[in-house]
């Protein structure tokens, strides 16, 4: 018997065929394709340029950081790609490519690798990078939005350049790369900023009343139908609720995402807007709620592992989004809410108890058992 070649490992000796990190990450990328394709149609080739720059920067950042930190290169697990695409999804379609590159570098190098790599990051890297960009001076470039099909007025393939005009403080002017300002593409308000800026008209709550071909209500706000299908201004990835839902359901079907988190977030948020009658349906289909609930909050590393914990985390995020939108009118509510709850996930896992099989009186909170002192620390063992 060729005995010297026998592999000796601890049981079990079988492994589920398709349970790997790279398969899960691939699933997420596949689930994002419909929304990305729709973004391409609505916002033109800019979307492709932004995603590409984000991916390339993310990959380079991971390789460089891992080389510096002396870790194995793990591009094969696609986790940098997922971060890159999700980060791109959080940007307005007119973000200058150099800002995209800086953001993608922040996401992978600072928000993931510095923490210790995939599995050790406390915050969702894409969200944290977006947040850091938002509060930085570069935030100006990522704060303005354009209306759907703006490219009709320039060219589908022409990249959009953004510049800050002198004189008018904070004013953003969109130009083609050749330098010609794009006519009539003044920053378009997103559905949530419209909600923030004034009272809602009854027709918005009532449902879609398409005007002409643009599915905009007579008040100038998008109808519910256009919100759901994705004819609105906003970040690249958040425009079509329908396509995000399809991607999310695919992830649930594949077992990559636990249904409790999106159901908990969307459900609790909807319930709260319903109770307060704060434009429940309009709010539901606006902003990054679906993108956040299905793709950001469900990030394995930064969400709790226990089922009880997942419910708590999801309802917590839903309630936080509601607070941020209802009292503070923050369109960035989803991002901030998830970032608040990311570090709490660790505490939830530590303290929310899971009843063991056959446990009659199950505790609510985990308690450390009293092992005889001293509990040996790693340092003690060395001496």
């Amino acid at each position, binding site marked *: 018997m060729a005995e010297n070649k026998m592999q000796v490992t601890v049981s079990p000796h*079988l492994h589920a065929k398709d349970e790997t990190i790279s398969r899960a990450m691939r699933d997420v990328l596949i689930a994002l394709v419909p929304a990305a394709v729709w973004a391409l149609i609505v916002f033109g080739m800019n979307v492709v340029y932004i995603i590409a720059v984000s991916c390339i920067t993310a990959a380079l950042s991971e390789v460089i950081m891992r080389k510096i930190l002396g870790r194995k290169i793990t591009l094969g697990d696609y986790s940098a790609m997922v971060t890159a695409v999700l980060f791109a999804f959080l940007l307005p379609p007119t973000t200058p490519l150099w800002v995209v590159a800086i953001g993608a570098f922040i996401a992978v190098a600072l928000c993931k690798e510095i923490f210790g790599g995939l599995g050790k990051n406390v915050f969702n890297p894409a969200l944290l990078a977006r947040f850091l960009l938002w509060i930085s001076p570069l935030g100006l470039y990522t704060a303005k939005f354009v209306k759907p099909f703006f490219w009709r007025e320039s060219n589908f393939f022409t990249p959009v350049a953004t510049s800050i005009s002198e004189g008018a403080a904070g004013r953003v002017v969109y130009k083609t790369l050749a330098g010609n300002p794009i006519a009539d593409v003044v920053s378009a308000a997103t559905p949530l900023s419209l909600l923030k800026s004034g009272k809602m008209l009854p027709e918005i709550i009532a449902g879609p009343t398409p005007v002409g071909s643009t599915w905009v209500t007579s008040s100038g706000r998008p109808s519910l139908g256009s919100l759901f299908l994705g004819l609105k201004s906003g970040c690249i990835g958040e425009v079509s609720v329908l396509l995000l839902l399809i991607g999310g359901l695919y992830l649930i*079907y594949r077992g990559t995402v636990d249904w409790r988190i999106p159901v908990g977030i969307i459900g609790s948020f909807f319930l709260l807007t319903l109770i307060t009658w704060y434009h429940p349906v309009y709010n539901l289909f606006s902003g990054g709620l679906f993108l956040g609930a299905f793709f950001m909050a469900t990030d394995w590393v930064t969400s709790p592992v226990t089922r009880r914990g997942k419910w708590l985390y999801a309802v917590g995020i839903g309630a936080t989004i509601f607070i941020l939108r209802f009292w503070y009118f923050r369109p960035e509510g989803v991002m901030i809410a998830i970032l608040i709850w990311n570090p709490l996930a660790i505490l939830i896992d530590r303290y929310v108890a899971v009843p*063991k099989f056959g446990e009659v009186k199950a505790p609510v909170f985990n308690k450390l058992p009293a092992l005889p002192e001293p509990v040996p620390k790693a340092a003690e063992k060395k001496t």
Partner: protein
Amino acid sequence: MAVKSEYATFKGGIHPPYNKELASSKSIRTAPVPAEVLIPLSQHIGAPNEALVKAGDRVELGQKIGASEAFVSAPVHSSVAGTVKEIAEITGFTGAKVKAVVITPDESQPDFEKKPGKDLESLSDEEVRSIAKEAGLVGMGGAAFPTHVKLTPPKDKPVDMVIINGCECEPFLTCDHRLMLERPSDLVAGLKLLMTAVKAKKGIIGIEANKMDAVDTVRAALGKEADISVEVLEVKYPEGAEKMLISALTGRKVPPGKLPSEVGCLVQNVGTAIALYEAAAWGKPLYERVLTVSGPGIKEPGNLLARIGTPISALVEACGGIKGEAAKLIMGGPMTGWAQPDSSAPIVKGTSGILLFTPDLIDTAEEHECVRCGKCLDVCPMFLLPNFIAQSAKRELWDKAEMYGALDCFECGCCSFTCPAYIPHVSYVRKAKAEIAALKKR
């Protein structure tokens, strides 16, 4: 997504590839007598045995060669007639050094002489227990806990139900399946003896739905037994784990850290029940057992009746030898068995199979940092937190490891099977258990 089964089952668990067709249709055949048997002196959980023979002694087939005064122990018997060559330190199947009696068998081996049959109906509970003890019976599903101890439940916890574990939920293994097909009436007789021993009114034989032929055969063998029933269970791993099986069949849940007697149940494996029948009816001690030799690396997979102490290599030879490139040799099932560095270790009473894997079956990868996907929690039949046990053990935080359930883990391996980060949870759990036990002794 898992399809809901019509059969009873438990929460959690996995569906590994079963690969049972390799050996399930092969009738049990007797393995040849090896050139040498190495019989480990202690093959059970409990107090170690002392050798009753010395080098040069002549031993008969079935002669007691090792025993202990302690209650939690099971004697061992010679599996051949021959001469004791030595009492040696050998490397057992777990990799640890164990004391073993090395016996050179005679050229011609006698058949076992069945002792005059006792009237099984008239045996008392005490008599059944002492028969089990004298025959050296242990749990033959792999745990190897002395049977007579299990048959002595605490006085304040009456047992009303005896369950025979015919699930054989481990992939590849088919020996219990074959025993149920070929010796159903002995199995039923063994179950009745177990019921006598604990004065239980009811007996259940639980069989997974991938062995419907065994269900039919055993049901036919029941005849008019009104107190015994055969129940079909969903095909899922680890359906045959004691607590899972009780929960699936009766709905009773054994609390953490407690034994099945807590809920009035006793679980025994098919092989153990038949061995008890043999011991009571024929006076035959446990010196041989049926096991499965299988895997893509075995030329002619099959189910062998082999003598305890036969080295693995002899059994692989008896099955036609190796086919293709051998990459991993496992003693036991693929989910809980022990990988062997070579084929020298002898089989013991708890050995249910010998498996030889080819490289295509091996799926190992470097351990990645836990990505907190929570899949191990979903599959853990004990509802523990395997990822945090592993993490705590890695950082030597033993109190945390205990908090997350290290002591309640029975090492089924579902967590590692399903882990995308390829974390060897079982290895961490074993370490944590040992460290926690050491701390508690202080």
